[in-house]
Each structure stands twice: as structure tokens, then as C-alpha cells.
């Protein structure tokens, strides 16, 4: 079925689809935005450098830039991993120096075969990394000061080694294996570059796709909550320093083979270059965020900058100055951008929409069908004081009542007067709409998660948690954030509403403040696929299959209307209005036993709430300046249940005029001659016995169009589970 665009129901012009504030907020909320700004600026620097000093792109300089890229790149990967895990490593340059000097000694003085030199050097890197890791992760010293000290120590080790071996160290040994590391090629790619790319790809996959990567990010973002979530914080953090040592040792090997420098200040200052590279790449110094690929991009820019400074004939000291300036600017950017981006995104998230509702029916005027009465005032209470916010409820064949609870539970109230309550299932979200499937399982819409099926033993099985993501849209609408109400059709499909693709039930007030079409209706096929059938509804809510099974009734709470979506027959795929311009905000809808429908109202329109709808800017001011409790929204403290016919005529309205027991009714369910009342803010389920004239002979829980089985629930025709 083609997805129906319900935007037209708002009565607003096409251009109102655009919400610049929200688009900006969506953009800012993207996790890649964290690094996007620094990396874009860095690329600008790179382009600027390349344009002003084009020589650096020449064939000759390519080798030099490439050699720097490889060596600094390895350090940058090492530093990125440590930074993402919330640590810091100032000793990368010194470790590289020890490895470079050590490998030269092993190769030239002890004349070990290259393979052995590589193994020993890499092991040495692991040992050096372990020293950092031991001090920082196990002894719990501060990373900055620790690695500063170990950096000085490793540097001293280089001096000592050089002093000890200087006279035997100077003459290179001709060895093709050794030359291979620094000057060889694998598959036509220089050895170092080959391995760097390999390491980059591997580290990127590990960081973004593996459990280890998630652990690193978690530890770097918030150590304490990582620990509380069972992540082995010490091991993870220790591991990053070991990997850092290993990568630095590899960089040292490449440098030793390429350059063969026996200077005691080999690779000195590389830590600042690598640090600048990663910060240019948008790796956050505050931990938890960073990408090795971006760090590598930063490295390339640093390498280009260094060569450009030489090409412009500037003093070699200028390179350090330039790097320092760039480092400072980008570190400040990281700090400020990292801090204000989420705040700004949150501020811009609510982007109110202008709506012009029709004339308001005055329910206080006597003589109309809407006349306020006390029909609900004497409802019996079920689970009084124990239930918190049961949006909806259903009643099984034995008369037990099942209802949700905002704490994530599904209650079961059994016994003669439903006095015995137990937590039937725990969902972890906010259970909203409930319905029984033909097999006697409870199917529940859970805000924050999706749709689950709960078997008679209370086992929860998630049958829909994601929809297909809308293409070319910044906002990821694949999660089911606000699964609200549902019903089943004869073909076994479950039709459910998702009130907002942006927020969950806990933040329903922001949906009400915004009035922007962000809701949808989805169809869960028996084969498990989820498709969106209607989108751009404002707060899509109640769902009911019509008595003939040919259509689905859809409630749009904040456009005060009910529409019919034909799913069979000549009009299949079309939507037409059933009720429009209602005096309140309709919520759930259910079939009545006399062939009509029950519709609950979560709150009533007032002239003032209607006025607010016309003025989005006033609502922006409202959301900025007032606490949520003081927001001007429709009147939530009085509501009702209405019965309407198939043709859309309001037949009867039931009120609790006292407002004591059921000020807010979000759902009603007719079963066994009684009407059960749920309320999102209520502490009970209400029950009234319906007068005989309201009770017909239709089983309200039977799925329309299904052949009845044992006179109770139906059996699916042609569909198998």
C-alpha cells in the first residue's frame, strides 16, 4: 500500500512543511556533527595550504608528506584510541623514539634478523604501553601527569641507549628485509602506508562496530556509568595504553628503517604533532568521541602544513608555532562546540506549527448531545492507588483486567471484583494501547520500544521495534518512539499508531506544544515487516478496525478528528473523514457492542488553547520561558467518552462532571456489558455498567471478518503464524 500523506488534514499550505528550526536541530543532533565542524575547518586549512603552496602536491613532495603521514598517522590512531577511552597519552613520541633507537641497536649492534627485531620492538612497545596502563588504569594516577613523566623517562632511556651504543651504532647494515619496512612496497603500496591503511580500517571497524569499541566510547564518555553497566573499565583503559604503545613502536620501526637516525632526539616533538592531528580531526579531548579516519585526515593536513611551511621558506620553528596555534584554536573549538551543540539542538528542537481549528462547540450549552453529565462519576475503581497512569486496558474472557502502568508494567487484576492485582509482565517502556490477538495473547504498544506480544504466561516477545527509515531525511524515524494504540484485522496484520517520530510518551507535552505533523500509522504484517501506511498526522493515536473489517479508524488527537482508512473494497488505500472539528482532543477508539464506536477524549479545547494554536511564536516563547507544567495546552482536567455511529454522528456523551474520579479519560473498552476506563494520569481503572440500551450482541473483542471460534475469539483465515 502506498503511504498516504496526511499533511493536508492540517489545512496548512505546503511551505509549512518546512521547519527550519527543527531541521537545524536535527542537523546539530547528528552524532557526526561533533566532528563535522572541526574536520570541515581542517579540510579548509588543507585546501588553503594546498592552494597557496601548490608545490607540496608535486610528485617530489608526495614522498615526504607520505612518510610523515604514515609515522604521525600511527601515533594519531594510538592517541585517538586513548582519547576516546577518556585517557591521554603524551608519551607517544617518546615511545616511538625508544622503539626507533632500540630497533636500530638490535639490528645494527646485535645484528638480529629483521623478523626478530620487529617482534622484539613491538613487544617493547607493549611493555611501554603496559607501564602507562598500569600506572593510569590500576594505580589510578592522572593520565596527563603520568604520561608526561613516562615521556621524560622514555626520552632519557633513548639518551642512555644512544650513549651506551653510540660507537657501535653508526654503521648501517645492508639488509633487504630491514629496508623493506621503510622503503618496501606491498601490492604496490609503500609498506608503512599499507599497514597504516590496514590498521585504520581495522581500528575504525572495531571502534564503530565492535563491543570493544562501544566499551571504549562508554568508558570515555562516563567512566562511572560504564562501570555500573558492567563494563570492565580497568581492562578497557589498560588495553588502550597497550595498543598505543604497540602502534608507537611500529611507527618507530618504520622511522628507524626509513631514516636510520641515531640521534637521541629522534621523534621528539611528535606528540604535539600527533595531538594537533587528532584535534584537527575532531577527536574530542574530553573523551568518548572520535574517529580514527578523521584523525588520519587531520594527520594528512598536519603533514601538508609542515611541508608547506618549509616550502614557503619559513623558519623550522614556525612549524611548531603554527601547530601550537592550530592546536589551541581547535581545542577551544572542541570545548565550546562540544558544550553548546547539544544545548542549541535542544533549544531548537520544538518548532511550533500554526493551526486554525474550526469553530469550537460549546459543551456547556444545555440541550446538545454534548451536555455535561455525571455518567462516569460513579465508576467503580480497580487497582485504586496502585496503578500509575494506565493509558488503556483490556478484559479477558474470565473478566480479568489487563492495563499498563507508566513504570513499564502490565497489570493483571483478577478476582471477582478485580481486587487481586499482580504485575503480569514488565516491558521496560511505557505500555499504552492493549489488544488481544486471536490466539489469546496480549499485544501491547509500548512507548519508547515498539509493539510486543505477551503470552498468557506473561512472556514478552517484541514483534516490532523498528520501521523503515524515511530516505533523504535528517531525522532517523526508524525507532518506534511513541507506539500508542493498535488493532488487528482479519488478515492477521496489526495496525498501530506512532504518535510522534520524535518523542516518547514521557514528553507528550512537547507534541502538544508543537502541533507539528510527526505522527504516523504503521502496519505490521504477520511476516514481521513493518510499513508506514499514513504519515504526517498530528499525534496519531487511537486505532480501531471498523465493524465490517473493511477500514481502519484513525484518531488524530491534535487535529481533533477521526478519519477512516479503507483497506479493502473499492476505496482501498483512500482516507476519508469520519469526525471533524471535535470539541476535545480524541484519544483511543474502540468498537461498541451495538455496532457503533466509543471514543475517549484526553482533554477539551478551550477558546484560549485554540488561540494559542494560531500563534506558533507565542508557543516558542511559552516553551522557552515556562516550566512544562505551566504550558498552555488544551484543558486536560475534564474529559469524556462519546459514542458515535459508523456515519460519524455523535450519539451519546458520558462525562464525569465532578472531575473527581475520571478527569482524564484516554481509553475505554467495552466488555461483558461494562465499560472500562483508562487514564494516562489516573491512579485507577474505572468501570461502569452500561445501560441495557447501549449493549448489543456484537463481541467487541472479536476481530471483524474472522470466523468465530467457540463463540469467543476468532481464527485467522488464510493466515498462519
Amino acid at each position, binding site marked *: 500500500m502506498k503511504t498516504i500523506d496526511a499533511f493536508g488534514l492540517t489545512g496548512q499550505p505546503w511551505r509549512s512543511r518546512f521547519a527550519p528550526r527543527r531541521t537545524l536541530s536535527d542537523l546539530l543532533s547528528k552524532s557526526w556533527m561533533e566532528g563535522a565542524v572541526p574536520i570541515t575547518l581542517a579540510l579548509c586549512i588543507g585546501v588553503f595550504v594546498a592552494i597557496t603552496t601548490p608545490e607540496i602536491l*608535486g*610528485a*617530489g*613532495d608526495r*614522498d*615526504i608528506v607520505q612518510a*610523515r603521514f604514515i609515522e604521525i598517522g600511527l601515533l594519531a590512531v594510538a592517541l585517538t584510541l586513548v582519547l576516546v577511552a577518556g585517557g591521554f597519552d603524551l608519551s607517544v613520541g617518546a615511545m616511538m623514539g625508544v622503539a626507533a633507537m632500540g630497533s636500530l641497536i638490535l639490528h645494527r649492534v646485535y645484528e638480529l634478523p629483521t623478523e626478530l627485531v620487529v617482534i622484539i620492538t613491538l613487544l617493547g612497545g607493549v611493555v611501554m604501553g603496559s607501564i602507562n596502563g598500569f600506572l593510569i588504569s590500576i594505580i589510578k594516577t592522572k593520565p596527563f601527569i603520568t604520561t608526561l613523566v613516562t615521556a621524560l623517562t622514555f626520552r632519557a632511556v633513548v*639518551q642512555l641507549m*644512544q*650513549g651506551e651504543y*653510540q*660507537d657501535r*651504532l*653508526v*654503521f*648501517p647494515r645492508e639488509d*633487504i628485509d630491514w*629496508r*623493506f619496512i621503510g*622503503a*618496501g*612496497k*606491498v*601490492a*604496490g603500496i609503500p*609498506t608503512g602506508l599499507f599497514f597504516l591503511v*590496514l590498521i585504520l*580500517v*581495522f581500528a575504525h*571497524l572495531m571502534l564503530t*562496530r565492535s563491543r570493544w569499541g562501544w566499551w571504549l566510547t562508554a568508558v570515555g564518555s562516563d567512566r562511572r556509568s560504564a562501570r555500573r553497566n558492567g563494563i570492565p573499565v580497568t581492562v578497557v583503559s589498560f588495553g588502550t595504553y597497550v595498543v598505543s604503545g604497540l602502534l608507537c613502536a611500529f611507527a618507530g620501526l618504520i622511522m628507524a628503517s*626509513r*631514516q*636510520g*637516525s*641515531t*640521534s*637521541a*632526539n*629522534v*621523534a*621528539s*616533538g611528535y606528540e604535539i604533532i600527533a595531538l594537533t592531528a587528532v584535534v584537527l580531526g575532531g577527536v574530542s579531548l574530553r573523551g568518548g568521541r572520535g574517529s580514527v579516519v578523521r584523525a588520519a585526515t587531520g594527520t594528512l593536513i598536519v603533514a601538508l602544513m*609542515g*611541508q608547506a611551511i*618549509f*616550502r614557503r*621558506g619559513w*623558519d*623550522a*620553528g614556525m*612549524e611548531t608555532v603554527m601547530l601550537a596555534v592550530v592546536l589551541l584554536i581547535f581545542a577551544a573549538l572542541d570545548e565550546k562546540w562540544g558544550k553548546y551543540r547539544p544545548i542549541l539542538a535542544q533549544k531548537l528542537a520544538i518548532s511550533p506549527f500554526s493551526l486554525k481549528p474550526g469553530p469550537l462547540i460549546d459543551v456547556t450549552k444545555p440541550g446538545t448531545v454534548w451536555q455535561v453529565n455525571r455518567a462516569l462519576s460513579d465508576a467503580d475503581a480497580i487497582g485504586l492507588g496502585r496503578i500509575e497512569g494506565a493509558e488503556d486496558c483490556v478484559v479477558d474472557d474470565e473478566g480479568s483486567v489487563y492495563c499498563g502502568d507508566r513504570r513499564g508494567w502490565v497489570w493483571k487484576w483478577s478476582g471477582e471484583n478485580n481486587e487481586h492485582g499482580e504485575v503480569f509482565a514488565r516491558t521496560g517502556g511505557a505500555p499504552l494501547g492493549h489488544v488481544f490477538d486471536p490466539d489469546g495473547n496480549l499485544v501491547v504498544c509500548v512507548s519508547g520500544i515498539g509493539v510486543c506480544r505477551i503470552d498468557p504466561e506473561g512472556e514478552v516477545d517484541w514483534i516490532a521495534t523498528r520501521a523503515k527509515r524515511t530516505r533523504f531525511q535528517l531525522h532517523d524515524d526508524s525507532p518506534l518512539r511513541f507506539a500508542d494504540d493498535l488493532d488487528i484485522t482479519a488478515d492477521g496484520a496489526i495496525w498501530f499508531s506512532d504518535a510522534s517520530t520524535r518523542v516518547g510518551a514521557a514528553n507528550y507535552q512537547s507534541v502538544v506544544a508543537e502541533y507539528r505533523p510527526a505522527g504516523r500509522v504503521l502496519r505490521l504484517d504477520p511476516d514481521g515487516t513493518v510499513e508506514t501506511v499514513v504519515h504526517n498526522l498530528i499525534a496519531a493515536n487511537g486505532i480501531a478496525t471498523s465493524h465490517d473489517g473493511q477500514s481502519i479508524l484513525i484518531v488524530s488527537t491534535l487535529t481533533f478528528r477521526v478519519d477512516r482508512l479503507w483497506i479493502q473494497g473499492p476505496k482501498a488505500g483512500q482516507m476519508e473523514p469520519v469526525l471533524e472539528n471535535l470539541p476535545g482532543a480524541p484519544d483511543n477508539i474502540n468498537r461498541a457492542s451495538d455496532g457503533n464506536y466509543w471514543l475517549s477524549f484526553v482533554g477539551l479545547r478551550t477558546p484560549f488553547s485554540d488561540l494559542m494554536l494560531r500563534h506558533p511564536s507565542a508557543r516558542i516563547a511559552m516553551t522557552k520561558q515556562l516550566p512544562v507544567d505551566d504550558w498552555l495546552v488544551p484543558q486536560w482536567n475534564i474529559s469524556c467518552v462519546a459514542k458515535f455511529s459508523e456515519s460519524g454522528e455523535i450519539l451519546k456523551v458520558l462525562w464525569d462532571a465532578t472531575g473527581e474520579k475520571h478527569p482524564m479519560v484516554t481509553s475505554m473498552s467495552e466488555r461483558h456489558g461494562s465499560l472500562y476506563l483508562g487514564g494516562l494520569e489516573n491512579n485507577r481503572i474505572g468501570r461502569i455498567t452500561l445501560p441495557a440500551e447501549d449493549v448489543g450482541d456484537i463481541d467487541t473483542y472479536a476481530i471483524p471478518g474472522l470466523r468465530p471460534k467457540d463463540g469467543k475469539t476468532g481464527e485467522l483465515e488464510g493466515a498462519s503464524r
Partner: protein
Amino acid sequence: MKKSVFIWLASLALVTTGCTVSATGSSGGASEAGGEGLPVAVDGLDAQAQLGESLAGKKIAYVPMSLQFDLTKMWGQQFEAIFDSMGADYSQEDAANNVDTQIRMIDSFINDGVDVLIVQNPDVGVLSTQVQRAHEQGTYVISVNVQGSQSSDAYVGANYTAMGRLLAERMVEDCKAKGRNKVAIVGGFGTDSNDIEADRGWKPVFEEAGMQIVSDQQSNYDPTKANQVATAVLQQHKDLCGFAVIFDVTSLGVAQAVESAGLEDQVGIYNFDASAVWCDALRQGRVTAGVAYNASGIAVAAAYEAQALLLSGAPAGSRRVMGYVPHMIVDKQNVDTVPGACYGVA
């Protein structure tokens, strides 16, 4: 699952392609238009024209370890004077004693296809690849004062072994007079040819004379570092006879340490090279004696080599020669009369 696929791919790439070590690739390079040298019989004007032609527009680059020493700065001034006057395209770079930077600069010049490269090796092995690459693409390499393990087209500098011997003999003489037998060595990088050759010169002399070398440490040609080294030595050996120091600038750092320790009259300071600043110190009695080599002669000889190579047009690396400049002991008595000593920088 993902990991195994990845490893499989990586190993496939390795196996199928194989690994190679290529000689560092270079394309073309500066072809020599210099000719075959001067004809047997030549008119003075013709010879001048021929030399001018062989140098005109030629790119000549000079990359010492650092341009912050009077010595290397003075050479640079001399190179600039001669090469600019001959119409060559001369440039110099300051690596500020950083080996990585120096190599990067030299690599860049080689890639630019310079015709003559004048370098100072920071250590014996480090510029081997660069010299090789330069020769492959037809760039002449001249090493000044510090030699590398890969022979360049020409090396000009001082004979550090002979100078070391001379300096040590002078120290032994002075120490015997003072009745002391402890000496300390303050070297440069430790792995540069000056250090290695000086060790070969002075160590056997000290050993033969029964002197005790109480310390042998590196200063990296940095006076501050030399000062630290000397201070530590003096704390342990108040009865030291003298310091054998690699370089005049380094020596001034040692002198400060000796003065701080209040041992000016007892501990001698001996070193190679004699710039104007050092000569002033000698006159003030802050240092004892040195071996001065004809410092500006090195620049003259190197400049001559560059001109000769370009004029001869011999292929780069086809003829590798070396030569020394003269040296002699300088002390308070002869400081104003030693040729080449007490050179200054304009």
C-alpha cells in the same frame, strides 16, 4: 565473523601481491650541461665565461645541522657570496639541530632536482639514503666538516683524529704540570663523525699517558646541555684536570659550569674550533686552549668543489674525493696570530 572476513581479505592481499623493495624511485633528474672541464689551452676570458655558463641558474642548496652556530652561519655567508656572484640559484635552510627536519629538507631539495647539495651529516649513517638518491638523479653532494658512511662527491673538513691527538697531548702536558690525572669528555651527538674520530684521536693518548677518563657524555652541541653535564662532573670530581670538549660553543657552556663551581684556576677547558666569541673567552682566561682549524677554508674548499664539479660535468657520484684543512693549537699566547682562527660572522 566480520573479523575473520577481514583477516582473510588482508592475507589474500598479502599473498597475491607479494612484497617488494624498490630502489627509491627517481625520474630524470638534473642533467649536466657543464661540459668536460676547461680545454688545455684557454684564454682567461673564455675560462671565465665557461665557468659562468656552467654555474648560471644552477640550483645549489646548503642544509647544515643548524644555522644557529657562527661556524655554519659563516659558511652560509661565504657560499651565498660566491654562488650569487656566479649567477647560481643558491638557498639554505636551518634544521635547528633536528634530524627529522634536516632529512625532510634534504629530501625536498633532492625532489626539487637541485644540482649541488651541501650537507653536514648529523650522524654517520643517517644521510646514506639521501646521498644515494641524490646521486641516482644526478645531484652532486658535498659534505662539510662531518662525514657520512655513504661517500659524497666531496668531503672537506678538519682532521678530527689528528686534532684529537694534538689536543690530548696538550692536555696531558698541562695536567702533568698540575699533577692531576682526571679528564672528562663532552661530546656532540655521539654518533656523528666528529665525535667518533675525535675519540680515536684523544682516547689512546689519554690511556697511554695514564690519564683517567671520568666521564664521556654527549652535549648534542647544546651549551646548556654541556653546562649540565659539566656541573654534574665537577660535583663528583673536584680534582678534575680538564674537559676535552667537541666544539667551541659547547665549551662556553662548560666554562660557565667551571666558573659556577669556582674552579677557574684549577680545571682546564680544551676544545676544537675557535670562533671570535671563543677567542674573547680565551683572552679572558675562561677557556684554556683549543685546536683551531681553518674554518672559513672549509667553505672556500666546498665552494671550490661545487664549481669544479659543475665545470667538469662528471656524473654525480662518479668521483668521490676528500681533503682536510690545516689546524693548529691556539692558546692565550698565539691567539692573535693563528690563521683562520677567531672568525666572525657579518
